[in-house]
């Protein structure tokens, strides 16, 4: 195992995932981060937390897409216009209850394909307004 050099550390960037408590209406989405990955760069998606603080009203949710939780954080490739479609490369779902979910940092994704990547939080219900928080960081290796 090698020691670090200035050259190594200067090429490591931690990009924030920072969405303070925010209301998202029924069947609405919010882009919270966009990254353009260039050739020779690697995006490590390893650590994200999603906190469903409250719903309004409290009650039985009606899901829009039964494959996802009430609220989910998705990492999408390609330029997304409007609402996200398809399956994200990675997602973090809050299935039923209020509370916090986090990614498993020991089963992470390393992405090296040049493209535009977006992190999107989606309210997957048609009848509730949700109050959510997203926190974490993505690491980009600028030179590999």
């Amino acid at each position, binding site marked *: *195992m*090698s*020691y*670090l050099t200035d050259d*190594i*550390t200067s090429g*490591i960037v*931690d990009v*924030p*995932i*920072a969405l*303070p*408590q925010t209301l998202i209406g029924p069947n609405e989405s919010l882009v919270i981060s966009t990254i353009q990955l260039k050739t020779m760069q690697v995006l490590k998606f*390893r*650590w994200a*937390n999603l*906190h469903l*603080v*409250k719903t309004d009203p409290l009650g039985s949710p009606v899901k829009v897409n039964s494959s996802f939780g009430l609220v989910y954080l998705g990492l999408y490739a390609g330029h997304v216009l409007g609402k996200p479609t398809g399956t994200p490369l990675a997602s973090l779902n809050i299935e039923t209850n*209020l*509370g*916090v*979910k*986090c990614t498993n*940092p*020991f089963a992470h994704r390393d992405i090296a394909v040049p493209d535009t990547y977006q992190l999107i939080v989606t309210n997957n219900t048609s009848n509730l307004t949700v109050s959510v*928080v997203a*926190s*974490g*960081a993505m*690491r980009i290796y600028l030179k590999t």
Partner: protein
Amino acid sequence: MGYITEKQIADRLDLPVALPTTEVKRNNWLVVATFKIQSPMQLTFRYLQLQLVDFTTVGTSGVTLVESGKGMCYVGIFKNYDGTSPSGNPNLQGTLNDVVIASAAGVVSRNPDNASLVLTGGAVPESYSFVLVNNTTNTDIRANINGQIRLDLNIL
């Protein structure tokens, strides 16, 4: 003090605690960031700044506080705050681990020379939430937060 290796730096992330200037109504609160950890993870909190930009009463003399000693607003790290009670009040919902208090308009910082708060994950996952609390009953505030917390994913 030892040197660090590539593996150690790969397992270390600096996480943002960031709130652009936002209005918080009287006697209300806002979750800014939440991190859920368990063994072998560890959070180290050292650096945060809170700016109370302005507030709706003229001067601070007419301000009525909810809890004395906690200023007009404060940022606290609450353990296992989930907001599921009808009130959702973080003071009733979680354990306060660290706090930065603003008693008047201006910027206050956590002193980075003070001992860092170290939160070590246990066998059961536990969440830590940074919550901005408006500690008044008669004043709306606008505030912003900039800070950082360090995550070590594997301290073993």
